[in-house]
């Protein structure tokens, strides 16, 4: 099996889906000829032509609203937004239309479409290149939101997203785009949307993370290996609709819960997971369900970013705190 990074897994998955299905197309700013600023769509225009691997004008509403129209018109568009911070000009299209078309028309018009974008901090980027806005999209009925943390899942979730009859927001943890390689099967496969993955079994505490923070949590577990704490690590993978069952089962076993995310704290994703744990496992809780999150400040530029980014050390410390509560 070939070894792939998350980025190359995304690239080859797009290639595979466009090869198998003529109605799958890709569009975005600089996403055609040069293959996108991260090269996630590299080679697609050369292989499938300008019409199916489209360089669009610089206009996110047109990209997303256009993709909606393409889906209505019989295509399966995969739209690339250059960085998640630049999805904002297209926010109206996503919330007012993409999320609602099925319901608005009582199922007459459905939108098999994917909106891909790199997200998250830690790459010493300029302003607006580091946001984690997953919970905002997770709040909107009608959207699905997925985030892979491995090359294997990157392929499986993207395949599932493209085949999904409904719109899927596909966030790419750009910090680990090329961080490591993994064996990724050549044949087509899906990772089901809505299913978390227990990465490591444990008995003392349940830790949920996604995207690049899965890797940071694994590092934290390394740091803790002599502490005698048995961590159960769950990669959430789908933010909406997320997998309550897996979390519930785990917390009922461990009695302790920590969610780690880079998104801002207040009204952020962790709050929802904690509230869910409360309902599903309240009587099993031995400590308050806890979150370790980005601060409620605009994610700083690189010279201050380390104050914001969540290190393995902080995760390790937090795990200890919760276990000792």
């Amino acid at each position, binding site marked *: 099996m070939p070894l792939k990074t998350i980025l190359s897994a995304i690239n080859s998955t797009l290639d595979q889906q466009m090869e198998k299905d003529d*109605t799958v*197309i890709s569009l975005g700013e600089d996403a055609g000829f040069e293959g996108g600023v991260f090269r996630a769509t590299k080679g697609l225009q050369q292989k499938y032509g300008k*019409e*199916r691997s489209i360089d*669009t*004008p610089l*206009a996110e*509403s*047109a990209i*997303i*609203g*256009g*993709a*909606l*129209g*393409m*889906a*209505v*018109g*019989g*295509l399966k*568009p995969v739209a690339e937004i250059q960085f998640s911070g630049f999805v904002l*000009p297209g926010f*109206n*299209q996503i919330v*007012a*239309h993409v999320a609602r*078309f*099925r*319901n*608005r*028309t*009582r*199922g*007459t*018009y*459905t939108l098999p479409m994917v909106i891909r974008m790199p997200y998250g901090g830690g790459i010493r980027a300029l302003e607006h290149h580091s946001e984690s806005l997953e919970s905002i999209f997770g709040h909107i*009925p*009608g959207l*699905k939101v997925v985030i892979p943390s491995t090359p294997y899942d990157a392929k499986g979730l993207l395949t599932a997203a493209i085949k*999904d*009859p*409904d719109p899927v927001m596909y966030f790419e943890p750009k910090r680990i785009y090329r961080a490591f390689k993994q064996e990724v099967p050549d044949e087509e496969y899906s990772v089901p949307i*809505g299913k978390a993955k227990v990465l490591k079994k444990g008995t003392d505490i349940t830790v949920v993370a996604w995207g690049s923070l899965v890797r940071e949590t694994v590092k934290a577990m390394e740091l803790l290996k002599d502490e005698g704490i048995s961590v159960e690590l769950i990669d959430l993978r789908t933010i909406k*609709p*997320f997998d*309550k*069952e897996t979390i519930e089962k785990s917390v009922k076993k461990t009695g302790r819960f920590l969610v780690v995310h880079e998104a801002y704290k207040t009204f952020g994703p962790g709050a929802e997971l904690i509230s869910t744990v409360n309902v599903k496992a309240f009587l099993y809780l031995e400590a308050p369900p806890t979150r370790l999150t980005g601060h409620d400040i605009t994610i700083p530029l690189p010279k201050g970013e380390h104050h914001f980014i969540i290190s393995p050390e902080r995760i390790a410390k937090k795990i200890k705190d919760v276990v000792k509560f």
Partner: protein
Amino acid sequence: MLTKKFDPLKGKILEVLNHEGKIVNEKLEPKIDDDKLLKMYKSMLLGRIADTKALQFQRQGRMLTYAPIKGQEATQVGSMAALSETDWMVPAFREMAGMLYKGASLKKLFLYWYGNEEGNNLDKSLKILPISVPIASQLNHASGIAYARKLLKKEEVVAGFVGDGGTSQGEFHEALNFSAVFDLPTIFIIQNNQWAISTPRSSQTKAETLAHKAIGYGMPGIQVDGNDPLAMYIATEEAKKRALKGDGPTLIEALTYRLGPHTTSDDPTIYREDKEVSYWEERDPLKRFKIYLENKDLWDDKKEEKQRKEYTDFVTKTFKEIEKDKFVDLEEVFNYTYAEMPKDLKDQLDDYKSYLKEVK
């Protein structure tokens, strides 16, 4: 080319049938067969009658907000008549007459104004998109559909509607640019009814005409008497030809007027003068089209009376039917969020159902 001959930069406006029902430009009179002419007129008439009734019903508190079309029937029907069944219509929210012409059922259209999503569930074969409330956003959908149909090698065009107010939105700009860049088979029709709620066209933009905006996208633009169904017909027909030849989109500014209020919750007397309204009442699209048909011996007062009565009965009956259809089922409001209901949503539905059972 009409767009050359009636260059908005030169202050030209395309007119064929003037407000007295006279053909002012014989060479341009389209050859439309009699059946089609009658269908056009009847759609306009049905639209007008439904509009009038809707306002009555609303005043009696029997209907929710409704956006009247009175005065804009020719813009809508003239353009839709130039398209084929296989072409697409992407409406804003004030295109009832055009939707009727294209085959939408009156009942569905008013189910929407009665507050039921089912009203947007038009037969897919009609190729009419649902009503779009966020101003101008629908134009990007028009571009996208046009892109898809072109790529799939379908000989189809897409007509996207927007108001004069809508031309100020960023999405107007992005959609027109997108269509132009890819030479898409899109036709953008601005229903310039002179007002965006209380905001007059003159406060919306300093552009001399809205058709001027086409220049910024490198597409042809034309100002058309929007109360003249024949002018709208030929402008749209030409745009369609251009689109199918691969020459890209066209911007049509239809000069028309909203004779009624913005919606049923609006009081236009606050912001506009009666004499403006009467000026435009004289330019009523139905009046002139009726004369045209009469001159062709296709129509007369008797037919008119009969048709009006028939439509009035039909509309009243339809509205009453709609009124019977009381509330939407609980399942309905949950069922269409996703193709398959996620477990958590199912739980929410079940919770709510048990609550309802308990309190009963």
